């Protein structure tokens, strides 16, 4: 069995543009061990979000291989991909993607609705995830009434609800003030200490010197350059 939880080989993703091809990712190779915290640095348009989407199985590549726990993610049919995402991946989006008219606890429970578990277990998972993300005190508030920092915490709680082994974060501090951003970094450290594999895509310089990050990788024009 491979020592890597995530193995990416010769990954390419391009889009048609004016009769030609616009490469967002080119011949990208990356291996991530279980429990690692990897920071992907790079300016907007360097391919960070696309890479996260491909690892999560939200998007499909044009060529190359992505193995997560030995499972070829980009070869799974939609049905199996949904099961894979539900069990193995928690995604935190830059713009939170919460359902505004639902309460915090209902938003956190969304990924569990399709999971094969009882109502009591769902409630238990939601409570744990909210406590971990330090948002339990807002459990009954609707998402629309929350501040940016609180919304990001709800998004993280939602990503943790199904207890995935991989957490993918896309620009988690982009819309947060300094205090909220630093509180979030503390939360990431907590997740790392719990043994979660965390990949953070960001252009926030604070992540360059994270003491718990195993690696900081720099992306430029769809390639990992350092």
């Amino acid at each position, binding site marked *: 069995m491979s020592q890597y939880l995530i193995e990416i*080989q*010769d990954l*390419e993703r391009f889009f048609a543009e004016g009769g030609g091809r616009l490469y967002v990712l080119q011949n990208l190779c990356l291996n991530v061990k279980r429990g690692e915290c990897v920071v992907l640095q790079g300016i907007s348009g360097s391919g960070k979000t696309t890479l996260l989407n491909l690892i999560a199985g939200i998007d*499909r*590549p*044009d*060529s*190359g*291989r992505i193995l997560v726990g030995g499972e070829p993610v*980009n*070869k*799974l*049919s*939609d*049905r*199996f991909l949904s099961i894979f995402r539900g069990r193995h991946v928690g995604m935190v989006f830059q713009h939170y993607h919460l359902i505004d008219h639902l309460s915090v606890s209902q938003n956190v429970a969304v990924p569990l609705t399709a999971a094969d578990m009882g109502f009591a277990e769902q409630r238990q998972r939601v409570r744990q995830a909210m406590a971990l993300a330090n948002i339990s005190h807002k459990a009954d508030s609707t998402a629309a009434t929350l501040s940016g920092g609180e919304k990001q915490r709800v998004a993280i709680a939602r990503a943790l609800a199904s207890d995935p082994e991989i957490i993918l974060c896309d620009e988690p501090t982009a819309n947060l003030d300094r205090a909220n951003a630093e509180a979030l970094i503390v939360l990431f450290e907590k997740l790392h200490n719990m043994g979660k594999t965390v990949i953070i895509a960001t252009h926030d310089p604070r992540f360059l010197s994270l003491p718990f990050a195993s690696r900081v990788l720099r992306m430029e024009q769809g390639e990992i350059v350092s």
Partner: protein
Amino acid sequence: MNPIFLDRNIFVYALSETVVWIVLFFAMPAAVALLRYWDFSSYTALQFRLERRAYLLMSVAVFVFVLKLLLFPYFIFTLDKLSAIVPGAMCAAGVISFDPSGMHLLYLKIAVLFMLVLWLVVNQYDLAGGNYRWSRLKYRLFVLLFVLISVELWLTLRFFNALDIHAVLNCCATLYGLLEGMNPLPFGLEKIPMVVLFYLVWFFALFSHAARKPLRHFAALMLFAVIAYYSVLYFFGTYIYELPGHHCPFCMFQRDYWYVGYAVWGLLAGGLFLGIAALVAEIMMREKVSLLKRISSWLLSLFVLLCTVYVVSYVIRNGTLLPEEVSTGMVMPM
């Protein structure tokens, strides 16, 4: 072009069938490319492109094939409506028998229906598995279906184009009337033994399904197809019409009989096609297809129940079965 194409129902039907064919025509190059180059174990750009096209093609095909399934009852409805303007025809039977190709067209449409159900079953199992194991089989069937649908469209347009609304057609009483001295029932059966056999074969089909004997189940369904057709025509149908001498399979599609023909023949066709397609798919894919067989058994049971209700209802209301048919001495038109 025959001005009959301006008839509202024919226009809509012919246009729908043509649109279905055009969509399939544009999907064909993708299906052929998938058949030629599909290699799921490959991670090349070509394979990923094919996987995206396969997804699109599958979505289009499912939509078009479901539409095609719905077009069949509309075809019967269209023929039935035409009988109002074609002299002599009292129902769809007269119109479809206008030209010898009409019955061939009907048989081809039924064969296409079965192939559509088979394709949808294989597609369902292909998607349910994680590795698209049945993609090649699915696209082979797709190509075969395209050929059949092309021939069907050509025959359909030719049939409507040849239809002469001034020609006097035969009515169903002539076409399905009893011939003097001849027994029209299969295997030389009399009416009552045939009805007993109808219930026995239905029970045997259910039993062989429950006992998981696929070959016996298949044989039972094939036999039931024959027995059920003749039983509806020569026994249960007479209770729907409440006329001992009326043996038309099409009149029951009319408003006078509450359009019950769609339910009777629909349940029978649905039950048989799903059951047989599930068994054929099992042989081709070597996988158990139990849910569809269960649905098939339910549909056939509903069909048997519906047929029985008409007889029981008649007996309750009249205290007796329908009287035996009196021979009219009718001869088959040459």
